[in-house]
């Protein structure tokens, strides 16, 4: 194991870390935490998307939905396998953890109940994933993960294109189809904005940045997301509560509502008249949302059934 000074020097030099033997225990802990969030997010997107993909309007659309789910499972596999190489038990992580202890964004706990909501999730949530993972792919100091993300970035791009193409198509159809799209955007846009976490003004220090486990701050990532999503929505005629301003010659994306504010998960409705604190948001995240237990049960139940019927000698 390197000394703390040797390790800091290695991180500063831009060198990649390749094995546990080159890490400090603090780096290992932070790396594992970051990988769990990533693996859990990819994994939970599978049941979340599956429950909506069943409402696909055609066989082709359904197959695209299923292909996306298969990709997400492969991405989860990459993160969990790295955790396994770092000494974690993959089966315990996936199949024996309490649903509430999974570390994915709250947005996935709010049910996606139509094809329209699924494609907006591809347009918004996969864009959030693209920003977060693209930053990690670019900056990550852990070699095996940086290389593993090559595949992930290629495929997230395809999910995003599916989302954008369908959003454009539904918007162009007009009438009730477009109304349904606007309704989905109305609740899913602020949830995606929340995805990036506490604003930089409240989170002064990030160990993940120190260790180059990521390269951009929460606000920088949120701005990146807004800079891609807002112009696209405007272009296809969908209203979003944000606009561009120019400050010191730079484009800045401003929200048109108090951030954070009250969300009614049951009715998928935001109350822009009720600002709340980040403590309130964190409490909502920790309590998890409506679909948490159902989705985790979808992949945990079969594992335990299998184990009961195929008792292994050991």
């Amino acid at each position, binding site marked *: 194991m390197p000394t703390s000074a040797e390790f800091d020097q290695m991180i500063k030099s831009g060198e990649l870390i390749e094995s546990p033997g080159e890490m400090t225990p603090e780096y290992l802990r932070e790396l594992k935490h970051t990988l769990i969030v990533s693996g859990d997010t990819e994994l939970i997107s599978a049941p979340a998307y599956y429950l909506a993909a069943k409402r696909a309007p055609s066989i082709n659309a359904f197959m695209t939905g299923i292909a996306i789910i298969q990709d997400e499972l492969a991405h989860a596999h990459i993160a969990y396998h790295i955790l396994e190489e770092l000494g974690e038990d993959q089966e315990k992580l996936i199949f024996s953890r309490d649903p509430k202890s999974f570390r994915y964004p709250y947005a996935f706990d709010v049910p996606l109940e139509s094809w329209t909501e699924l494609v907006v999730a591809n347009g918004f949530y996969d864009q959030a994933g693209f920003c977060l993972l693209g930053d990690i792919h670019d900056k990550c100091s852990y070699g095996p993960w940086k290389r593993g993300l*090559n*595949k992930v970035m290629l495929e997230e791009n395809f999910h995003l294109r599916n989302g954008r193409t369908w959003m454009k198509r539904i918007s162009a159809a007009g009438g009730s189809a477009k109304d349904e799209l606007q309704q989905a955007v109305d609740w899913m846009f602020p949830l995606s904005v929340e995805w990036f976490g506490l604003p930089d003004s409240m989170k002064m220090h990030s160990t993940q940045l120190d260790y180059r486990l990521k390269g951009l701050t929460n606000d920088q990532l949120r701005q990146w997301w807004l800079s891609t999503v807002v112009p696209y929505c405007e272009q296809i005629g969908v209203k979003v509560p944000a606009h561009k301003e120019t400050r010191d010659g730079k484009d800045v994306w401003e929200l048109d509502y108090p951030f954070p504010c009250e969300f009614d998960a049951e009715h998928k409705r935001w109350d822009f008249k009720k600002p709340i604190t980040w403590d309130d948001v964190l409490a909502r995240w920790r309590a998890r949302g409506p679909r948490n237990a159902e989705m985790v049960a979808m992949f945990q139940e079969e594992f335990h059934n299998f184990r009961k019927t195929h008792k292994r000698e050991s």
Partner: protein
Amino acid sequence: MSNSHNGYKRVSGDAVEYEVFARKARVDPLHLVGSVVAPDADLAMAYARATYDEERWCEMAIVRKEDVIRLWSPGES
């Protein structure tokens, strides 16, 4: 769970790690694209094909990780 001999426990039994190599074009060298954990080579091939399908590879090969003979690795020059 991993142990020092590259072995893993799965609900279906003992499994080992296979490294997955592939290349896209004939001019490309074969390179490591990832790995899978499976109880035998047949399943490892199935997992590799299904997991690493991000390109239309012109070649894909797997090898048991423990069969790779390393002369040296990063950090041990």
